């Protein structure tokens, strides 16, 4: 152990340290999941072994979360079927009827609950429906 400081002792490279820390912050900012608030983290999705993850992300797509007990929400805002129908109808009027609707159904939810959402989607004039699952395909 050395005592005291000599003139040749290397100092802490503060500028380089700040550079690295800023790079890390930029990395986290860029990769931060901005959709964290629009998906319901209480939902446990089913596993898809063969279907690859979705790459085309339509900015106007509607994500409907469907819990195991049948409760539905969009961006964690609970909705009744009539409210969902109104929202989807307004979306189709604004952006056209080819907007995809993604149903994030819990793996334990029954099909009759998914069917209820699909019927509402059809009544609102939309027809592109997708069921979300966690992809295990490479």
């Amino acid at each position, binding site marked *: 152990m050395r005592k005291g400081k000599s003139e040749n002792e290397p100092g802490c490279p503060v500028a380089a340290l700040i550079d690295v820390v800023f790079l890390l912050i930029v990395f986290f900012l860029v990769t931060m999941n901005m959709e964290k608030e629009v998906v319901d983290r209480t939902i446990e999705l089913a596993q898809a*072994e063969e279907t690859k993850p979705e790459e085309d992300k339509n900015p106007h797509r509607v994500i409907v979360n469907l819990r195991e007990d049948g409760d539905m929400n969009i961006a964690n805002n609970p909705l009744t079927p009539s409210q969902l129908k109104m929202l989807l109808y307004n979306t189709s009027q604004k952006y056209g009827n080819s907007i995809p609707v993604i149903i994030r159904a819990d793996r334990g939810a029954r099909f009759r609950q998914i069917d209820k959402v699909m019927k509402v989607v059809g009544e609102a004039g939309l027809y592109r429906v997708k069921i979300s699952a966690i992809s295990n395909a490479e």
Partner: protein
Amino acid sequence: MALGKRKGSGNEELPVPLNTLIDVVFLLLVYFVITWSAPIPEAHLAVNLPSPGESTQEDPPPVLQIEVRPEKILVQGKAYSIDEIRPRLKNLAEMQSEQPVIVKVSGEIKTHRLVQVLDMCKGLGFETVNVMSLKG
């Protein structure tokens, strides 16, 4: 200009408080490290509804019908277990993968079973897969 110094109008120089800056930057870093989570890869299985402009053909092409019931799965009316339908569907996909598939699902079926069947159809190369409710 040297780091940490600012040119003023006169001779006075204001030092940048580096310690405070580093503190703030580290706090930001800690925040992002704690709140960051790896994105979960989500697959989206298309189960398109009939589009409004879609005309009804007088002579529709033959469809492959799969019924998903609580106790069994029927392919073209013949019952299979979930493990048995894969080879059957594979044979059908090799013969005619452009054939539309209609999956009729009982209301009691859970999502993970539906996803299993849809995923299998998509993985075997069926291009059009539609889902509808099984009556009765």
